[in-house]
């Protein structure tokens, strides 16, 4: 009587014998050493800082740490920081153990672009012989879709990469006054376009609009719009880098050329109007910039 042949075992990495030679690297399955390079002692602290020079807030960020205790347990440590304009920071100590990872999360839906809010995480230790900041773990912008993390995040500087795109409504000056907008403290701008409107009084005369960029004191850029505005007119002029048009492209619409340049904190974009009358009224300028933290 014939017997049924034995069915060979199906191929499975778990039960397939190793046909080649022995591995040269052996994996330890007991008394395993901690995997992280970051062993912290009770004297070490963590500095969690958030810097927002122009984003008004308030907003909340969460730092989550995977922490391996000396008894072998991995616990999650969460620190929440309520942030506002300027620098907000938190210093804390976790005791002795191994830091496995750290991630900063942002539940704020309005924070869409890099260039807005900067986060940093440092290992610090107060010793008289060295500065307290011993190791930068996180230095990065945070957005809705980008959560800076350690160890597989990046250490960057705030001037790198694309900035925050901002459309800004400036100050409406008083009657007869000029426009002046200033780059905020700790911020760098790349100016893309700057549009103004001028409503002239009934007093006869030509008004010629100049755009000036200065460093807060010294004028470093000056150009004229191509539009002459007469009495009782409403004129729009745009400072932009699209080139110069030698004649008005439409009734009471002018252009002025803008060289590509970065503007530092305290730099101003302003107007200087030849033939201005005390009854002339500028409206609030609307301008487009790309913004980075420059601290």
């Amino acid at each position, binding site marked *: 009587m014939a017997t049924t042949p034995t069915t060979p075992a199906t191929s499975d990495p778990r039960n397939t014998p190793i046909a080649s030679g022995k591995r040269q690297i052996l994996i330890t399955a007991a008394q395993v050493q901690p995997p992280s390079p970051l062993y912290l002692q009770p004297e070490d602290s963590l500095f969690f800082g958030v810097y927002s*020079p*122009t*984003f*008004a*807030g308030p907003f909340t960020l969460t730092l989550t740490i995977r922490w391996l205790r000396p008894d072998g347990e991995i616990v999650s440590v969460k620190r929440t920081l309520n942030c506002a*304009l*300027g*620098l907000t920071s938190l210093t804390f100590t976790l005791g002795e153990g191994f830091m496995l990872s750290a991630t900063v999360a942002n539940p704020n839906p*309005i*924070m869409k672009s890099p260039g807005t809010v900067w986060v940093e995480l440092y290992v610090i230790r107060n010793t008289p012989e060295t500065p307290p900041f011993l190791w930068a773990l996180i230095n990065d912008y945070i957005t809705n879709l980008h959560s800076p993390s350690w160890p597989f995040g990046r250490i960057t500087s705030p001037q790198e990469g694309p900035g925050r795109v*901002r*459309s*800004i*409504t*400036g*100050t*409406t*000056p*008083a*009657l007869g*006054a*000029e*426009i*002046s*907008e*200033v780059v*905020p*403290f*700790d911020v760098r701008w790349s100016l893309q376009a700057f549009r103004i409107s001028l409503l002239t009084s009934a007093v006869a005369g030509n008004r010629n609009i100049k755009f000036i960029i200065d460093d807060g004191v010294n004028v470093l850029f000056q150009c004229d719009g191509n539009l002459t505005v007469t009495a009782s007119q409403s004129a729009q002029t745009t400072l932009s880098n699209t080139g110069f048009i030698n004649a008005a492209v439409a009734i009471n619409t002018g252009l002025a050329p803008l060289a590509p340049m970065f503007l530092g*904190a*305290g730099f*101003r974009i*302003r107007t*200087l109007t030849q033939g201005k009358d005390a009854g002339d009224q500028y409206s*609030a300028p609307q301008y487009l910039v790309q913004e980075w933290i420059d601290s």
Partner: protein
Amino acid sequence: MATKCNTCGGTYTSVQPDGSHYFHACAPIDNPAYQPDPKKGAVNLQQTIERPNKRDENITGTDTVTSQPVMVSAGAGVTTI
């Protein structure tokens, strides 16, 4: 809600629609001593000068006591309109 600067009379909104803070600073004013022509005597090429008691809301640091941001200069203050 808009704000009016009591120094220069300019009006602005402190928080922009995108959540950013707007830092007002008063514009310079015409220099009454501006005189570019050497034939007419002492030349003064400064077309504009800073407005007296100007307001500049830009932040220079943090108050060590209150931990609140400190602006460059408050000028004559503001009025909410």
